[in-house]
């Protein structure tokens, strides 16, 4: 493993590389086809370099642990809006999740439906491209349309376009109060309808998830509200009235710790932790979700699911080696947890139509002419 101490050393390594490199942040995820390429770790590019709470911006080295960023922000009553998932429980790995890893994979948690994805919080990047050039795009201000937005392109490019060295992010204030409306006993279709109703109301919902098999073994649908105490109290009441029509047993949870624990459970897909079988992550139109799940269950009756993002994000656990993609219409599916043999056989990322795949391949060639950065990972 190579662990450059700074950006210049990183550039030197990439420029001088003779063979493929596997880019790694904290090493918490083994994703993609197995690779024996040399590991290039950004973990030493660590530390918060600028933090302006009054401007809601933070700048940090790509290798900075997310925990360090969260602690820095928490000291000022702020947080990352996109609520990044911690993959370690689901994947049974160790390592330290880094901010660069979250950005490279566009990791976004339950608040994505309200506050946007990781890429929506991303204001600027510095990175080393496949030729070893140190490049930058964006900056540290919230509104910036100066030139092409390569910031978004780098977010979610999984290290295939460049190795991130520094990222700047928009942050948000921690909410003063939080509440969760829980609906017990809804089937998948009713649950998505209930979540759509909540998300289509003026209540500014910050999380909407549904577990057909919750912690107690029965279905639970969760709607989260965050804000000032007066707002949360008011909106919880409005939502309770709005959702009464669905006929479910409604429980309101106002204990902040319990609400946080419930949403960590959703965010980190705790339902499948320690389980056996492969785990897929599907992004679909929310109302398509129950149909997609029904189609998967036709061939995989034992499949387990967890809906987040109002039904648009579906985590599916199926028996080892199965491919659920045929069930996904519009949208995409990523294989998150599977044995090496499966990952070698089944494309981890959703295959793109030929023309789009060709366009992406030509883009990669510009950023990485020698094809040494995570080759073959995304296609």
């Amino acid at each position, binding site marked *: 493993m190579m662990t450059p101490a700074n950006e210049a050393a990183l550039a030197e390594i990439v420029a001088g590389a003779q063979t493929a490199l596997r880019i790694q942040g904290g090493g918490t995820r083994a994703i993609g086809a197995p690779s024996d390429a040399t590991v290039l770790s950004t973990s030493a590019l660590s530390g918060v370099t600028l933090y302006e709470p009054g401007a809601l911006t933070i700048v940090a080295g790509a290798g900075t642990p997310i925990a360090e960023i969260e602690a820095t922000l928490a000291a000022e009553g702020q947080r990352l809006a996109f609520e990044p998932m911690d993959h370690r429980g689901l994947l049974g790995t160790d390592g330290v999740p880094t901010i660069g890893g979250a950005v490279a994979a566009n990791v976004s948690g339950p608040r994505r439906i309200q506050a946007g994805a990781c890429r929506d919080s991303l204001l600027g990047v510095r990175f080393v491209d496949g030729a070893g050039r140190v490049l930058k795009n964006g900056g540290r201000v919230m*509104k910036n349309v100066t030139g092409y937005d390569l910031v978004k392109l780098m977010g979610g490019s999984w290290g295939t376009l460049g190795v991130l060295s520094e990222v700047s992010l928009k942050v948000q204030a921690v909410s003063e109060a939080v509440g969760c409306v829980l609906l017990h006993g809804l089937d998948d279709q009713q649950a998505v309808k209930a979540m759509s109703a909540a998300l289509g109301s003026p209540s500014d919902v910050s999380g909407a998830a549904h577990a057909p098999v919750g912690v107690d073994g029965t279905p639970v649908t969760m709607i989260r509200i965050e804000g000032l105490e007066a707002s949360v109290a008011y909106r919880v009441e409005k939502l309770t009235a709005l959702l009464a029509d669905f006929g479910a047993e409604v429980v309101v949870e106002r204990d902040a710790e319990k609400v946080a624990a419930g949403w960590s459970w959703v965010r980190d897909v705790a339902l499948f932790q320690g389980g056996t079988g492969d785990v897929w992550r599907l992004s679909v139109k929310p109302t398509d979700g129950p149909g997609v799940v029904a189609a998967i269950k036709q061939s995989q009756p034992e499949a387990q699911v967890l809906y987040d993002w109002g039904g648009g994000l579906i985590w599916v656990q199926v028996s080892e080696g199965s491919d659920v993609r045929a069930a996904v219409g519009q949208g995409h599916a990523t294989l998150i947890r599977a044995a090496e043999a499966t990952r070698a056989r089944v494309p981890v990322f959703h295959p793109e139509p030929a023309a789009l795949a060709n366009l992406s391949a030509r*883009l990669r060639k510009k950023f990485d002419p020698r094809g040494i950065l995570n080759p073959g990972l995304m296609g």
Partner: protein
Amino acid sequence: MDMPTPNPEVLAKKARIVARLQEVLPADAVISDEAETRAYECDALTAYRCPPLAAVLPASTEEVVAVLKVCHEEDVPVVPRGAGTSLAGGSMPTADSIILGVARMTEVLETDYENRFIRVQTGRTNLSVSGAVEEDGFFYAPDPSSQLACAIAGNIAMNSGGAHCLKYGVTTNNLMGVTMVTMEGEVFEIGGAHLDAGGLDLLGVICGSEGQLGVVTEATLRILHKPEGARPVLMGFDSNEVAGQCVSDIIKSGILPVAIEFMDRPCIRATEAFAGAGYPDCEALLIVEVEGSDQEIEAQLERILAIARTHNPVELRESTSAEESARIWLGRKSAFGAMGQINDYMCLDGTIPVSQLPYVLRRIGELSKDYGLDVGNVFHAGDGNMHPLILFDANKPGDLERCEAFGADILRLCVEVGGCLTGEHGVGIEKRDLMVDQYAPEDLDIQMAVKDVFDPKWLLNPAKVFPLAASEPRRMAAE
């Protein structure tokens, strides 16, 4: 403003190009008469004009494909045009170019409240997107001040913002999918009703690419339910520094207003003379707006007013009715018109870190004296997106040039303090040559390499965004 020399070969074959375009479009969708093409000689950056070779107004994705295929075969540059409201010259033509206007593509294709999106043809205006869902209580959040006229196509090209993006984000944060035609006439469907890209985030790079990567014909946009209500509060301060500190303190307090607008004294005086909104005569004025139910609004305003009081405001005006709210916004909304009454003006759009606000305003004041040109500041303070309005006299020889030099100095100042050249208007031709102040040559090179992939012949809006000298080898190679 330098533009590339028109390609004489293209000029020479105008008749053939027009004939070919007429073959693929209805007769009234091809405009080639010199008197009529003049309607497309400029956008809202009116200082620069040049009629195009011809203009076309396709009505569908298929017609856009047909136009682009002809132009690609004939090596004719194409300048996409939304509603022509660009302040940066984003749709300014060259004499050898075809203007591709989307004005006839205004249909709503799909409205889906359960999944909270609307799919429209991109010639539809920003305000009429909200208009299509308003009766059902929904709206489309990005609200550039030209929203009555500007088209979604242009919003996507420039990644437009607006007064309320502090809470709701800009276009890119509300764009879920596009149908895009490349210069070669290939149609791409990217994104859609689901969230986030499966592969590379091409949607992210297309948004804000100023019509240089493809022509976006249809868009899937996120819609939200309207808040129950909104209410502004007006605050006057006796210095820019104090007002800037108040903005920072509000943001730090954890309350996220939907808008924080800032006006300085020259602007306050001009709008008072023009609109008579009853603003206090002070150094700096803030309009802070919050949303929610009545009780939520009151809870938020209570906190905001408490913060404001710690800064000894010379005025604190709460609204108690819709009329009073409208009066608070009246001056802000007429600020550009008010400045226009005094003289010609140039509107800048740099963004700065909020912490640099007092310093930057002070420096702009000093530069104003150096150049002998008045400047008023009115802007979105919450996100640091400034809009200095420099007054000049277009009829006075040399004034425009002096104004442009002053503007360039202000934008360099924005970059120097950690900000950028443009927050929501785009680069266009206006800030093209300042790109070297923000980006190193290799940073521009990688952006141009992206254009190489989407438009290898550099025919789409070729003379924009990048300094002409930087893009010349690519444009020449393509010719």
